[in-house]
């Protein structure tokens, strides 16, 4: 049995130790906001926070997530920074198909928690691991900057 703390809730899962957290979240816990894109940590669609750190859940065995606070996109509306990032995303109309955007928002939120006022190069560096096939990168960059600006005002 694997014990996971996901968005503040305890879950006991009967899954093998090596099952990637991604599939445990999606197929077992039925939290589908975290997406499968590549399975080899190349695209970032599966990004979650482990103790606040942006982590690729597709290559993180569940056993390694035990004892850590797992946070997914479903909990971002309850997070001050996450909520600002979501708001900036909507104001700038970032999403096209939207499939990668949960992962983008998770990475952006982790960035802003670490660096509340990143410059363009810092944003591009932090976001470079998250692929978007629709090509929304310019708006993502602008939205991260906008969310950071909101933080300054608050």
């Amino acid at each position, binding site marked *: 049995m694997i014990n996971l703390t996901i968005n503040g809730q305890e879950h006991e899962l009967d899954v093998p130790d090596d099952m990637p957290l991604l599939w445990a979240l999606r*197929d077992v816990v039925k939290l589908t906001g975290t997406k499968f894109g590549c399975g*080899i940590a190349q695209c970032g669609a599966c990004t979650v926070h482990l103790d606040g750190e942006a982590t690729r859940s597709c290559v993180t065995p569940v056993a390694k997530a035990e004892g850590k606070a797992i946070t997914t996109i*479903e909990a971002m509306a309850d997070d001050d920074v996450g909520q600002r990032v979501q708001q900036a995303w909507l104001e700038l*109309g970032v*999403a096209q198909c939207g499939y990668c955007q949960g992962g983008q928002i998770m990475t952006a939120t982790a960035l802003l928690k670490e660096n509340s006022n990143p410059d363009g190069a810092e944003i591009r560096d932090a976001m470079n691991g*998250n692929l978007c096939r629709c090509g929304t990168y310019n708006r993502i960059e602008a939205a991260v900057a906008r969310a950071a600006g909101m933080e300054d005002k608050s």
Partner: protein
Amino acid sequence: MSRLGDSVMLANVSRRHFLRGLAAGSAFVMAARWGLATAAEDADDPKYGADAMPGGWVDNPNVFIRIDEDGTVTITNHRAEMGQGIRTSLALVAADELGADWDRVEVEQADADQEKYGNQNTDGSRSMRHWYEPMRRAAAGARLMLERAAADQWGVPVDEVETRVHEVVHKNSDRKLGFGELARAARELDVPERDELELKADSQLRYIGRETGPVNGKLTNTDTRPPAIDGEDVVTGKARFGADVQMDNMLYAVIARPPALGAGIGSVDDSDAVKVRGVEKIVRLDGTGMPALFNPLGGVAVVANNTWAAIQGREALAIEWDLESAGDNAGYTSDDYRKMLEERAESPGKVIRESGDVEKALEEADKTVTATYYMPHMAQAPMEPPVAIVQFNGDSAEAWAPIQHPRATREGVAGALGLDLEKVTVHQTLLGGGFGRKSKPDFVIEAAMLAKQFEGRPVRVQWTREDDIHHAYFHAVSVDRLQAGLDKDGKATGWLHRTLSPSIGSLFAEDPKHKADFELGMGFNTMPFDIPAIRLENPEAAAHTRIGWFRAVYNLPHAWAIQSFAAEMAEAAGRDHRDYLLELLGESRQISPEEFKDGWNYGENPEVYPIDIGRMRAVVERATREANWDNKDRGERRGLGLAMHHSFVSYTAIVMDVEVNDDNEVIIHRADIAFDCGKAVNPERVRSQLEGACVMGIGIALQSEVSFRDGKAEQDNFDRYLIPRMENAPREVHVHLVDGGEDAPMGGVGEPGLPPVAPALCNAIYAATGKRIRRLPVGNQLG
């Protein structure tokens, strides 16, 4: 608006059944079924646009608009949402014409039902141009029903009432009734006749054409966010894509597919696979042979109680493939194939279009320019890999899938299960990207084949990224050889273009080895330059893998070759590229596509949609002006590149400001995109499509290639099949919407931004470095 009034087209019932009556299997029938027929094929009674699509259009308000007694307006969207924003934009059209308050509008997704909704095949950048008018009529009909219900209630003539925002008012008194209050009575009324409808004047429109969101980096209105019906769901992780459908008691399958097209299963040892925890069954799936159509490739399915177990089970399979049955395909090596095509391009081929004496022109030229360009296979690689869920219930079935072509999906599932079409329900989910890959429902049919063996249980087939890249319907490789003659002043006197690509026609019938009308019509025979002698040829090229639609399709290689070559000609002539391109285009004029031997014209009426040189010139002039082309010196190892292309009856020009740094990395400082699609219904989504196409085009230029060795795709995942990351995007992208004029008909948006990107970028690389790129992707060619 005059076009709306004049062309109130009655749905032609006989036409709707016409295509089904023809013998199946001919290339024309297949083309017609996917909306690719040449209008002229039905010469007696040519149909164009939405009218020519299978299933046509529907404008019945009762099909698309529902008003509840609490005032909620629910608009049904029957097109595939894959990021273009159609769920929002078509709903905006209906809401505007109806007089609904956007905040009280909801959108419901239609199931696959062509008889009820009309055509649902979402490709060809057609959704808005085909459905703008029917949706406005549907909404105008609903509005008239509300107005009649109000007039009845007040006992006044209907011309004394009018609709304002979400309510109907009596003009001669203060009386008003909300949409919700009128809903029940309006529902009882007959649907108005089409000739009773009065559409709103442009001045009365509140949503259509309104700029929202960011325009070139600046918010147009900081108080409002752009309308996005799924926006909140997307940013909170609630949006439901095909991958997110959850069912009780569901089985999860992944499939090991034959490596080469046409290969079969030799032997299977599944003794280790069945031991994997969670694996329930191993199932052999037979392929369906050639032509490939939209059918599954066959293979060995591992069915489990979760995705990870299925993936692990597949890893544990030992399969020997029967490559014999793949024939030539098992020996397909794309590098050899490229060389063969390049050699063949030196000899004449089937003549597609000819005017003047090109041999004489080349012979007498003061200077000739010759170049051969190559574009490789690419995989669409939507971020959501193919995925589908099917449940078979013995005498009926239900499917959930992210699909661009609901009708083909429904037919495919019904066929696999031996059910009548009516017994199959296909639920359309959001698509996590499509780009043409999800036009083909092979992955849904796989789920149906498996579901048949697990009656009563939903079966999900999940493609991994490796599956997606190995078994795409690949963008065709293309070799384009161009030769031009210039006179002593550098003016072009002759133009010889040979294009060689396997045809998508090879999917549907015996390999035609030549491009079909709709493939040639994507920028090859529609090449617009005003040159006295022109010959366009299409030598043979056989297909050795599944060739399919990739966003913008054959426009990609055609634009890449022609627009690169125009820059090479300007260079040879010692002229400025912009000035030379405008000279090649010649005077503003409208040309019938038929004059260019293009009987397809994206399915549109050539009289309404001529090839418009004036609109081409306008986008070139706008993009270069915005990019400050007249001061184009940008310093060391930095330069501007230009390209223009018309496709999907829209016009695009791009200027890119590009630096190649000392590490030979390509940095795109700025892109200026001028775009004319006629009326922009939802300008914010038009801009987003152009921004996204720009990024995707950068990947086509710099990174993306699927190569084959011995019949097998060599790239597995995003570590080797490279697509653009944020570092590759332009530092700034500016989209300039160009007003095509009063009479400019509505054009496509999703695809036409893509073709000119790669040539503009390669032309800029040349300006920056002097290095001419003729083979894509650029990869490490810069050193």
